[in-house]
């Protein structure tokens, strides 16, 4: 069979319309697990954060975590959902070794929150993503597959299970299908996950770090020709970064178009996204959907959130990130484009905090979008993890404002801060970086330079101010760059006028 080259993306979006859907799981940052009092902290030795309940030992019973329920309701409210006045947990029955009871306590036809939306901004336009449901469930343990090539299941000869993470509270957020996104489907998917992440982070209920697994995303994609019914959708898993969300949607759209164009049919299945190739491969077939035999969880009482309490939670919701950003943009006097750069760099909160520490908006923006963003890109590190804190950046700018550092010197100091050498003042001390403020020493250096370059001095006396550059250069060299070039120039000119 000859391999046909995949169609070009533009051709795909000309011929087909995509429908996307996103399912995200958020690990809540509660202190204890969903149904027992075992701690949720990371890094414990295997099977040390366990008890009869989260091990699923015979006779154990679950008791629901109030903080987890409150967090879920807040997420639902932030997503404009209706909160159920009465709902139950349900058992989702299937066998797998990381599920101690061989059923997961989740919610089925009675989610805690439903029917909401999230507005996201893409290319200056607001797109409304419908939210189908937000519900609460428990996470599984972790399985290590031993003996296979890549640490994955295929080829493994045995597996080792650690139940420390079994029972961590998990919130599942499912969008309604999103049609009409056209060629922007990949961007919209990414923008949705980004905004969702920011909303949840602003609530303080989870770290939501995709690279750590506290935010997980599955993407559903289908294609149809204009006017036709929606096509069969596939589910793509192992999407571990925002960039992967975008790439996964795009790659799946291209793949499906290729299949449909050649007269084939899309199989309803779960696909696995590969970071390295940017492609998806076939995983489990979902043709024969697993029968989970859901029924209401008899070991847990129904939830009936008090209306007054829900109203309180709603009133206390923090500003939505988008609204917050709008307010900052106005306060900082930035254009849409400039603000977008700040957002893209992941610098909103960093700049905000730097300003709170005393820097001006312009200065904060300059450092974070300039020097620090450059370093972050070079080293492939996230801006927030670059090694300099907003407080340190504010301190640095204060030193420049006070004349203790030139802009150039400040950059050197910043390098030291990022390298972990300490606060700006400490780096200045250790490295001996400081603007030469001793006017005597500076005057002496200028005199020396003038004496060493009599012809140049003559030219300057004769009115050729441009020649001062050589003398300035000499003084800078003599002071190891720690003189303020402007001051030196003034001194030179005044001495030779």
């Amino acid at each position, binding site marked *: 069979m000859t391999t046909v080259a995949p169609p070009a993306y533009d051709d795909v979006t000309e011929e087909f319309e995509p429908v996307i859907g996103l399912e995200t799981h958020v690990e809540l940052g509660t202190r204890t697990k969903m149904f027992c009092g075992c701690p949720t902290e990371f890094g414990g030795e295997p099977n040390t954060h366990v008890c009869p309940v989260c091990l699923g030992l015979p006779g154990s*019973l679950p008791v629901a975590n109030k903080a987890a329920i409150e967090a879920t309701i807040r997420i639902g409210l932030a997503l404009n959902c209706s909160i159920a006045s009465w709902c139950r947990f349900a058992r989702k029955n299937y066998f797998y070794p990381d599920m101690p009871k061989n059923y997961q306590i989740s919610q089925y036809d009675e989610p805690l929150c439903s029917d909401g939306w999230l507005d996201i901004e893409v290319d200056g336009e607001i797109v409304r993503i419908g939210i189908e449901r937000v519900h609460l469930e428990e996470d599984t343990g972790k399985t290590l597959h031993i003996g296979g090539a890549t640490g994955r299941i295929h080829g493994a000869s045995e597996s080792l299970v650690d139940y420390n993470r079994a029972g961590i509270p998990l919130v599942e957020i499912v969008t309604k299908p999103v049609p009409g996104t056209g060629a922007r489907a990949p961007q919209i998917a990414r923008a949705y996950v980004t905004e969702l992440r920011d909303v949840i982070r602003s609530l303080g209920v989870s770290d939501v770090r995709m690279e750590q697994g506290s935010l997980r995303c599955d993407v559903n994609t289908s294609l149809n020709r204009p006017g036709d019914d929606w096509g069969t959708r596939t589910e793509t898993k192992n999407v571990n970064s925002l960039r992967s969300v975008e790439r996964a949607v795009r790659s799946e759209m291209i793949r499906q178009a290729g299949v449909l164009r050649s007269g084939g049919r899309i199989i309803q299945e779960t696909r696995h996204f590969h970071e390295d190739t940017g492609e998806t491969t076939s995983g489990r077939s979902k043709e024969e959907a697993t029968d989970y035999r859901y029924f209401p969880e008899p070991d847990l009482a129904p939830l009936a959130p008090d209306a007054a309490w829900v109203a309180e939670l709603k009133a206390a919701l923090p500003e939505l990130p988008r609204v917050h950003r709008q307010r900052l943009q106005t306060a900082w006097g930035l254009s849409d484009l400039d603000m977008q750069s700040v957002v893209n760099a992941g610098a909103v909160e960093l700049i905000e905090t730097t300003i709170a520490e005393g820097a001006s908006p312009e200065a904060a923006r300059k450092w974070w979008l300039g020097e620090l963003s450059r370093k972050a890109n070079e080293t492939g590190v996230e801006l927030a993890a670059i090694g300099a804190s907003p407080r340190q950046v504010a301190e640095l700018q204060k030193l420049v404002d006070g004349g203790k550092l030139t802009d150039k010197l400040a950059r050197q100091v910043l390098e030291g801060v990022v390298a972990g050498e300490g606060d700006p003042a400490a780096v200045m001390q250790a490295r001996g970086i400081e603007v030469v403020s001793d006017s005597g020493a500076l005057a002496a250096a200028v005199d020396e330079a003038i004496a060493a370059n009599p012809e140049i001095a003559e030219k300057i006396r004769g009115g050729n101010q441009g020649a001062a550059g050589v003398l300035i250069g000499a003084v800078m060299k003599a002071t190891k760059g720690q003189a303020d070039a402007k001051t030196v120039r003034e001194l030179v000119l005044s001495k030779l006028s």
Partner: protein
Amino acid sequence: MIKKTAAELGALIASREVSSEEVTRAHLDRIAEVDGKVRAFLHVDEAGALAAARAVDERIKNGENLGPLAGVPIAVKDVLATEGVPTTAGSKILEGWKPPYDATLVQRLRAAGTVMLGKTNMDEFAMGSSTEYSAYGPTYNPWDLSRIPGGSGGGSAAALAAYEAPLSIGTDTGGSIRQPGAVTGTVGAKPTYGGTSRYGLIAFSSSLDTPGPCARTVEDTALLHAVIAGHDPRDSTSIDAPVPDVVAAARLGATGDLTGVKVGLVREFSGEGAEPGVMASFRETVDALAKLGAEVVEVSCPHFLYALPAYYLIAPSECSSNLARFDGVRFGLRAGDDGNHSLEEVMSLTREQGFGPEVKRRIIIGTYALSSGYYDAYYGQAQKVRTLITRDFTAAFEQVDVLVSPTTPFVAFELGSRTSDPYQMYLADLFTIPTNLYGGPAISVPSGLSEGLPVGFQIMAGTLRDDKMYRVAAAVESVVGTLTPPAL
């Protein structure tokens, strides 16, 4: 000594006329003497029992006031987790399993100073009405060793009837405390669902399982009830309300005065389906209640006849899910792990080997009833019947204080006589099941003999009105007395 009631023993121990150690030894000796024939016990914890007895004696010597049952021996159905002591639920899949924790009830028994003699035999995972489905062999009825002691808690009841223990703990999902009580001539009470903690109870049917007290007298049963009942924050279905004063109610009933008490005869249970001898004993007892001053009326509970089919959908459905955890991964039996089988195969082989036929049957029924496409027709419908039955009970209790019926349609049947037809076995629960679906309390108290075998009288009350049933039960006992089986 072993023929004494728990109340008597408790008093003797408290007054130091006799030590708990002596009492415990006497019962351990009795077990050694007769349990070869009765087989009530799966595990006898001699060392643990004597140590506990000595500890209680020490505390009493130091002047501590420990409560009416301190130092009294007790047997515990092997479905409750006892830390460090084997707990099998009557199944091979848990052979040798020693739980790393105690059930709440076991903790409360310890705190009350009772002395656990050991774990009693039961139908596997509490599924059965004769204890013939225990993977470790049946228990034999002390009244007639060729007959069943009832189930699923046959061991707990037989231990009482054989004087191996004055107290025992059972669990009741469809009648598993009451029916064994009836066929062994002992008292067995199912408290209001949620009245006793299920934390540590190996689950069969979560919305029905109820641990409860068993003894040879109503007062003993009430004393034990008071020790084990009460809210448990580790059980989300546990009721957070004061325990009804069952001991006071039992003592009131013992005076034999039931003036002002309204007793309802369930019309649908008053004739068909029960052996003539059982019905005769039942009617005699009803007459006796009337003579004690009770007003007896007939009440119709039309949906009670649908209880059996509804139960046989709800219980297996819940159990099919509850038993999924027995897969050979974390505890218990693991079969087929020889390097040639995948985990899925090991799980299947483990469960095939570890579960008996009745358990497998119910898992398959339950899986079927919950399957997509069948949920609404089976499980969903059964939950509606539950609503209807609850309405029947609620309406009835507006008219009467308690409802009465025979506990079970037949006296102890012969071993092997009902095991080839599961449906014939299920009929034993005909009268006990409605209460489980409703969640209310019910008690079985001996009402007499039929052809030399005990007959049980069932008294049902409204939720959290356990006191009412104890009063009437004590009144029955004041007329019938306690039954004494032939010597073993």
